[in-house]
């Protein structure tokens, strides 16, 4: 066994895997280093809801044994990862950040989990999240908020805030998040990471506890575009267990991440996603990044997507409608919390009391909203109208992609806000997702890549591409990352405060 580098946890996933493959580092060492880091900083960050040290070390030892036996391992073999607690994994609890699932051990692996294991990625544990992925700050977790490693008084984004904080705090080089309205990209943006929502249907949803079935998509969070691409490639691809998974080849994301050129690419700046309401620092970093891409030879075009203005209200009808039905199964009958079963109460009363006690206020708000929107007599006015808006937004994208190869915008209107700042104002919180929601409604892939800092806090740059052209995100994102790093250094490695 060789001496592990002192700052193993600061290696990228690709570097970690290369060191393991070269025999300079063992998977057990890499895993132990991550576990030590978790032990050191997670009291402050609270990125993890559950750490499976034993399972992680056992998996790592198995990987080392197979490498020692001469087996050729995959490009991420031995790399530790934080798994958002909305994906099932055998041997670990799945809570979705909710009381109602406290202590539930799923009897099966999500397809994403199974693919992580098949790629010899070491799952450290389950990452904190807004309850049932409903939120933009991770303040809605029933198990307490996660803090942003850049400033512990600020939110790490949400709903995949545990995932983003774990990567930003060097607890893991990789994390899996899920993105229903921006829940990977917004946490990536405010934590200075790369986060990708793949094309809807590109990554299996089997074992992803559904918030909004037609919008949810799992994807990678990482410190570099290449790391995100490697993880994307590991989890993507058709799954017969998910009817909405599409049978197409995985886009060549890893190759695209290494291409590092945008000469002649047409990049559309979305007019509706800038201007009023966008922090000056955010807008400035965005404008600089666009200018940089232009200097690198991309053709910059201003594009109008007029229906994006209606994306937020449409989203807040469709997502709650689907969630009101998806969350009906949490009824105390077969798994999870049971309240009020005193031998007298009937099933209906037990269900009602369990849901009252088990769901937090944001979940209740959305279940009630969705129940109302689907009610007979209101369906056409709300859910029906929202679906029409969704079609119009898809048409906006289709028209735009006839003119340009990718669309770009800031990922979020602001940098990370202080914990508690918007907790009592749902609308202000919802506005965080203004730029990210259109991609979910249209099912197209989108990435947030770091664009620098505003007043010491990370700013995200969003790239959107046509369905199943996820590789374009990586080509543009990789190019921008390389150019920005060359100018200012890597934001996380060079600028993030030590914990």
């Amino acid at each position, binding site marked *: 066994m060789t001496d592990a580098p002192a700052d193993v946890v600061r290696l990228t996933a690709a570097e970690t895997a290369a060191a393991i493959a070269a025999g300079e580092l063992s998977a057990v060492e890499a895993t132990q280093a991550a576990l030590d880091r978790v032990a050191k900083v997670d009291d402050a960050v609270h990125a993890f809801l559950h750490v499976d040290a034993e399972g992680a070390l056992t998996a790592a030892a198995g990987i080392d044994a197979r490498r020692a036996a001469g087996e050729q391992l995959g490009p991420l073999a031995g790399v530790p990862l934080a798994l958002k607690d909305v994906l099932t994994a055998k041997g670990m609890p799945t809570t979705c950040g909710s009381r109602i699932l406290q202590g539930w051990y799923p009897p099966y692996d999500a397809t994403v989990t199974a693919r992580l294991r098949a790629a010899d990625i070491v799952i450290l544990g389950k990452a904190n999240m807004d309850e049932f992925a409903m939120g933009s700050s991770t303040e809605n977790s029933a198990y307490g908020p996660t803090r942003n490693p850049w400033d512990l008084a600020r939110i790490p984004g949400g709903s995949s805030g545990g995932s983003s904080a774990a990567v930003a705090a060097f607890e893991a080089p990789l994390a899996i998040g899920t993105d229903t309205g921006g829940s990977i990209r917004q946490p990536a943006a405010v934590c200075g990471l790369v986060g990708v929502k793949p094309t809807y249907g590109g990554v299996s949803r089997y074992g992803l506890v559904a918030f909004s079935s037609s919008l949810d998509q799992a994807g990678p969070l990482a410190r570099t575009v290449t790391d995100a691409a490697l993880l994307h490639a590991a989890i993507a691809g058709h799954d017969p267990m998910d009817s909405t998974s599409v049978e197409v080849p995985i886009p060549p994301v890893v190759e695209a991440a290494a291409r590092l050129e945008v000469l002649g690419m047409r990049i559309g700046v979305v007019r509706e996603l800038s201007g009023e309401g966008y922090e000056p620092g955010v807008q400035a970093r965005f404008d600089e990044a666009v200018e940089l891409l232009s200097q690198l030879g991309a053709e910059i075009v201003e594009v109008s997507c007029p229906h994006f203005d209606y994306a937020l209200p449409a989203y807040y009808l469709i997502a709650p409608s689907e969630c009101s039905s998806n969350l009906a199964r949490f009824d105390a*009958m077969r798994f999870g919390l049971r309240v009020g079963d005193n031998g007298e109460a009937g099933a209906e009363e037990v269900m009602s009391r369990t849901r009252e006690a088990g769901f937090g206020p944001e979940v209740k708000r959305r279940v009630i909203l969705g129940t109302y929107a689907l009610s007979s007599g209101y369906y056409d006015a709300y859910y029906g109208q929202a679906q029409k808006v969704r079609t119009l937004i898809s048409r906006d994208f289709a028209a735009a992609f006839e003119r340009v190869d990718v669309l770009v915008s800031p990922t979020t209107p602001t940098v990370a806000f202080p914990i508690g700042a918007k907790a009592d104002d749902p609308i202000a919180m919802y506005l965080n997702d203004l730029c990210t929601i259109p991609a979910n409604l249209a099912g197209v892939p989108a990435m947030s890549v770091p664009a620098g800092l505003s007043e010491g806090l990370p700013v995200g740059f969003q790239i959107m591409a046509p369905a199943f052209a996820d590789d374009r995100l990586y080509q543009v994102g990789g190019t921008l990352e390389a150019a920005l790093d060359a100018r200012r250094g890597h934001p996380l490695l060079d600028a993030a405060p030590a914990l």
Partner: protein
Amino acid sequence: MSTPAAVMTTPSYEDAFARYEPVIGLETHVELGTASKMFCGCATAFGAPPNSQVCPVCLGLPGALPVVNEAAIRFAVMIGLALNCQIASWCRFARKNYFYPDMPKNFQISQYDEPLCTDGWLAVEVDGEVHRVGITRVHLEEDTGKSLHVGGATGRIHGATHSLVDYNRAGIPLVEIVTEPDVRTPEVARAYVEELRELCRALAVSDVRMEQGSLRCDANVSLRLRVGPGEAEKPFGIRSETKNLNSLRSVERAIRSEIVRQAGRLDAGERIIQETRHFDEASGRTSSGRSKEEATDYRYFPEPDLTPLALSREYVEAVRASLTELPSQRRARLIAEHGFSDRDLVDMRNAGVLDLVEQTIAAGAPAPAARKWWLNELPRRAAGAGVTPAELAIRPVQVARVIELIAGGSLTDALARKVIDGVLAGEGGPDEVVAARGLAVVTDDSALSAAVDAAIAAAPELVDKFRAGKLNAVGPLVGAVMKAMKGKADAATVRALLLERLGAA
């Protein structure tokens, strides 16, 4: 809002029917006989230990997703085509949301405004008259689990101390077949369900066992006053829906009971409440369930976990080409080819021998003889052995051979029964049994003549009676000869010989 029972007089069924026209629509659920469930790979066997045929999908565990079973789609299309329906080129599943412990996800994946099959009909015949029942729609959905209420006296939820749920049935594919309100008598309603059952059986898409719940029927019944010739028809009345009728007899009885009940209310000036009702087999009456006026809002919306179903024309045509002969087509053919009557067909169908008769005819037997043996002797043997006629250890081709031996004069009916005994006892085919047991009719004249002479010599008093004009005295003599021949003679031949010998012929 109810009137004291004393004021309400219950009319007789005949009286009610004479004054009111019943308007009946039927909703039938057929559990499809696919090997696996609608949206997962679990087995569908009936009677397995509770919760032994379940998985994350059909238990509705968090994260699990449905995947459509192609066989269920094909079976539903077969039913739709057999019911003369249009098959949708594009349709979707929808979620029907309501909370119930035996419903794992607290929504049922069903179809709502975009069903798989629409606008069909089924012709049913009652007393020689053909009724064409319109089919509104045929759609696919998943079944729920089964609740068992423990601790109460009745097995009902009321009074039970706790409930158990078996999810083996959860996710089994169901088709719901909804008729137009076209049915006007309880007899036609029953005949419709019976015809539908035969149709599903012929298509081999379900075992359609009403007693096991694989075919369940709900009857919507309303009444309106009959009108005289030339008068405009009255609009439909308010209907009740009687749920879960689990036998053909119950379908007819429940509807009759509803007709009488509603007529009584209408006669007393009461209004009919739109509600769900339950039929009690023992009392023969329906009782009120929950009122539809305070019904759940099911909040249907398109199932986002499934992609729309877009069946190609080629697929539908391939299914159509694969359809077997339907019961109505078969009946028409059997009548035309073999001269059976409607009554014969009903009898043979009820006895479960239609296939056997056809196979026996195909093996060379005349149709009347095939019908006779499969309708009388063989079902009796089957009943005695506690099996169905099809399970008897005699094949149609062997029955055809027995019939051939009778026609050729080698066997009498009595001997044939003994041959059948031998075949059923595993002694071989009919010819082997005849040879081994020595059962062939003796046609050797000398042996028979000797037996006739011996019988006459042994009973002079009978001969005297006969000669004195008591012609029926020949009966015991025939019996004596048959006994001497050990049954291996044809009674008619023996009788003729005796009459000839006694000088009467």
